[in-house]
């Protein structure tokens, strides 16, 4: 190009003949390429014709562009295709459990909290009074608008408090657990005989319905809703998140049973997202029956079910899909196989501010101070139900949220820092190249809650896209939400997102914008519209 052009431009006759030669050369190359391309396409057509092409394998002689540059999948994946997610960021924090043994918990107080369920009216009908004895699986309350869906007690014990929040809404029903757990005996249900309606009625009556979360909006599904597909992510890539391979140990049968239940609930498929990065997933995940498995390789948020849905089969405004966590699937399976409501959960207690991070076997809605009973906790800390990105701030007297299996304790950052924006003296997690973090890729950080700057208007562009492995423009979506542009919100993919998916974008935001809050505001608006 360079030489031919220069010659053409400057040196007259001899340059002209060079120009003709190079044109002929290019034409020959193009002809050759066309021949190869046609042959190659015929190959692909044939593959489709005999049904060998399932849309994922590559039957062309040319490697696909991403195959050239993507890292190699680890050996345990085998021949299965892997979705490599380039965007994302792993925030490495101090305070992960040193040991992988699960301790039996000594938590005595639990709560079931109506505000945990998005879409529930604020004052549900409470079926118990303070002083009542309940068994695990006994109904505690139901929504007055959706009377069939029962919310049940995770443990047996005595109701010791019914606490109210703003405008007399019910914030928590607190239960003091018995030493010996008693379970309400559920009627037996045979999966092979009943139809879907009976199964749905059984699950609603016995408290399993709130285990499901429905996208779009991340709400409890309405009784009549039929999900297009059901998605389960078998790994959590959030900072300090529990390892699902530990959680599943000893529960393999219940997990498979739970997947069988899911298969009856949807006319579509049940999809399992597997982690192709790090250690091999447990056999219960890789060898699960009746499901389609999909491997994902990438940094956080690769483990978020929303990201996986986007790459498997995205959600539009018309269709609904359900999502569950691994422990919810186990609870569902236990209900059908053993005839009891299994409120037990493995919870990771983590963070740099406690003496001994560890795994604890306890139940849904455990009290935070009970979880930390045998620990020394530093002063001036923040308790988070969930991970540091999308969890909820709690006090020590409050309880873990319904869907959370993680308690994180980090330092509060209410200090002034001299020239902190210019010359930060302590290491801190960041995706920015202006910090020397990239020199120490395995360094763990002791993060605190300081905002490291003040809120500003959106200025920097393109930074959200770097940590969100979706074909989506988060900044423009947020602006559409702020100006209430319905068409844009829908078009730019608000239905595909839940708070946890944009949490990392919020973390990296230079302008310190509250993206999760903005997104929920948009989701609420859209839900009211529909």
């Amino acid at each position, binding site marked *: 190009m360079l030489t031919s*052009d220069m010659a*053409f*431009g*400057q040196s*007259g006759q001899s340059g002209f003949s060079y120009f003709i030669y190079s044109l002929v050369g290019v034409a020959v190359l193009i002809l050759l390429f066309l021949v190869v391309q046609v042959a190659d396409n015929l190959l692909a057509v044939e593959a489709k014709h005999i049904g060998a092409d399932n849309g994922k394998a590559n039957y062309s002689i040319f490697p696909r562009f991403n195959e050239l540059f993507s890292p190699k999948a680890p050996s345990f994946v085998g021949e299965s295709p892997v979705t490599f997610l380039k965007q994302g960021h792993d925030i490495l924090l101090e305070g992960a459990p040193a040991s992988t043994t699960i301790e039996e918990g000594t938590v005595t107080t639990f709560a079931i909290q109506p505000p945990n369920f998005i879409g529930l009216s604020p004052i549900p009908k409470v079926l118990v009074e303070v002083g009542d004895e309940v068994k695990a699986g006994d109904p505690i309350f139901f929504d007055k608008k959706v009377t069939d869906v029962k919310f049940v007690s995770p443990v047996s014990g005595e109701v010791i408090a019914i606490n109210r929040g703003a405008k007399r809404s019910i914030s928590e029903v607190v239960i003091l657990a018995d030493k010996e757990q008693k379970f309400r005996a559920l009627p037996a249900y045979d999966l092979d005989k009943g139809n879907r309606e009976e199964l749905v009625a059984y699950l609603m009556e016995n408290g399993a319905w709130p285990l499901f979360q429905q996208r779009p909006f991340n709400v409890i599904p309405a009784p009549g809703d039929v999900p297009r597909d059901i998605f389960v992510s078998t790994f959590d890539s959030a900072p300090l998140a529990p390892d699902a391979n530990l959680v599943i140990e000893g529960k393999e049968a219940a997990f498979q049973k739970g997947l069988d239940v899911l298969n009856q609930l949807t006319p579509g498929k049940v999809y399992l997202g597997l982690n192709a990065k790090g250690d091999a997933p447990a056999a219960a995940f890789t060898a699960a029956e009746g499901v389609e498995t999909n491997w994902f390789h990438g940094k956080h948020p690769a483990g978020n079910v929303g990201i996986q849905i986007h790459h498997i*089969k*995205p*959600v*539009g*405004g018309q*269709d609904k899909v359900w999502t569950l966590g691994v422990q919810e699937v186990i609870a569902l399976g236990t209900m059908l196989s053993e005839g009891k409501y299994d409120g037990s959960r493995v919870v990771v207690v983590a963070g740099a501010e406690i003496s001994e991070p560890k795994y604890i076997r306890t139940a849904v809605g455990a009290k935070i101070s009970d979880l930390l009973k045998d620990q020394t906790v530093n002063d001036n800390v923040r308790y988070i139900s969930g991970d*540091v*990105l999308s969890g909820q*701030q709690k006090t020590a007297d409050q309880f873990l949220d319904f869907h959370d299996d993680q308690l994180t304790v*980090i330092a509060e*950052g209410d*200090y*002034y*820092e*001299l*020239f902190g*924006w*210019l010359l*930060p003296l302590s290491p801190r*997690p*960041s*995706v*920015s*190249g*202006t*910090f020397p973090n990239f020199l120490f890729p395995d360094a763990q950080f002791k*993060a*605190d*809650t*300081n*905002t*490291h*700057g*003040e809120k*500003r208007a959106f*200025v*920097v*562009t*393109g930074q959200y896209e770097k940590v969100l492995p979706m*074909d989506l*423009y988060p900044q*423009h979506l947020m602006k559409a939400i702020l100006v209430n542009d319905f068409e*844009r919100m829908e*078009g*730019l*993919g608000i239905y595909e997102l839940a708070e946890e998916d944009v*949490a990392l974008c919020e*973390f*990296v*935001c*230079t302008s*310190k914008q*509250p993206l*999760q*809050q903005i997104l929920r505001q948009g989701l609420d608006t859209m839900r009211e519209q529909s």
Partner: protein
Amino acid sequence: MKKALLNFFQRIEPDKKKSPFLHTLFDGFFTFAFAPNTTTAKGVHIRDGMDLKRTMVHVVLAMQLCYLFGTFNIGHQHYLALGQYTGLLEGFHLKLAHGLIKIIPIFIVTHVVGLGIEFYYAMRKGHAIEEGFLVSGALIPLLMPPDIPLWILTVSIFFAVIIGKEAFGGTGMNIWNIALLARVFVFFAYPTYISGDEVWVSALEGTSVDGIPTYMSAEYGWAHGFFDWIFSGVGWNTFGDGGVLVADGFTGATPLSLAASGGWESVTSVYTESQMWWGTIPGSIGETSKPLIILGAIFLIATGIASWRIMVSMVLGAVVMGMILNGVSPSEFTEATPGIFKFMAIPWYYQLSMGSFLFAMAFMATDPVTASSTNTGKWVYGFLIGFIGMIIRVINPAYPEGWMLAILFMNTFSALIDHYVLEANMKRRAKRTQVAVS
């Protein structure tokens, strides 16, 4: 030390209601000295260490080499014109002192006026002082000729900051690049101060010898006298009184204006390629030294602050247009060939090393607020700036440079580019979810 400073700040904090302006001012300086103690409330519990102040200050850091060289080059060009101290390091102290005398007032006026307006609007709107002007204020002096009258500078900054930014809602809301707006205001309102052959070398004034107009160095002021006092004290050469005639054959023309009139031949008759590359040529203060600008650009890309997509695509656009121009220009020149064809015939790679192309690429086009905000859009945006800028530079008869106008033009259209990128995304999504439903 830290505690004492913190106590001092907390003691002098003015009352917010009684004196809002003082409080805004206080808040600005306080948050400059101390990262605030605010903690995350809702949403994420930890935040990235990066904030807007840090982003902005890194852009300013990337320009520092241009500042250093630009300051020296003001003096160097002055003495080159007079035919004195023609070696690069000869009379270094004089060149540096002369450069400082020129650039410091420009820098101070820019910041006093710009930050003053910023503070005033922050007070009026009741929000914290935003950092946008840190970068604009650092850019504006680099874009100006060394002899720009300070009152013109003041007026242009008033125009740029008030009409260009505050009218749209402040930092992050403006449509056009603030620094370029200031320059384009001077360009259209006071063109004789920022274009032509006379403005790029500082402290010269017209005179005539035997009826032939020429230039001589203007009378030096009190600041030069002050430096003379110091320099004579330590036994160094001094500025003297001025009134020195320029050397024979002096022209203040920039390579581009030479190129516009006589093509590459007339450029190389005055400047060598290495002079143009290293930047010892007349021009706006910060634009001349290519390697230092490239270092700044590499710094911005490495830290991830400026978009490499815009820079790369802008180079591509300029190269493509440069090649087209090379292609359509006649291969042989006669006496009658107009200069424009000779300009067109300049090989595209020389076009990149002349004028302010690299400076515009590194610091002006990459402004995230006024550029396209989608990654695809950035490719289109950068490419079109390069493409159109080259057209304006070469084919426009009046003014042989195009980046300022091309960038402002594409600033206007950046939102339109984004619109189509978003529309495509929406269509793609609609199609995908429809497939998913069926």
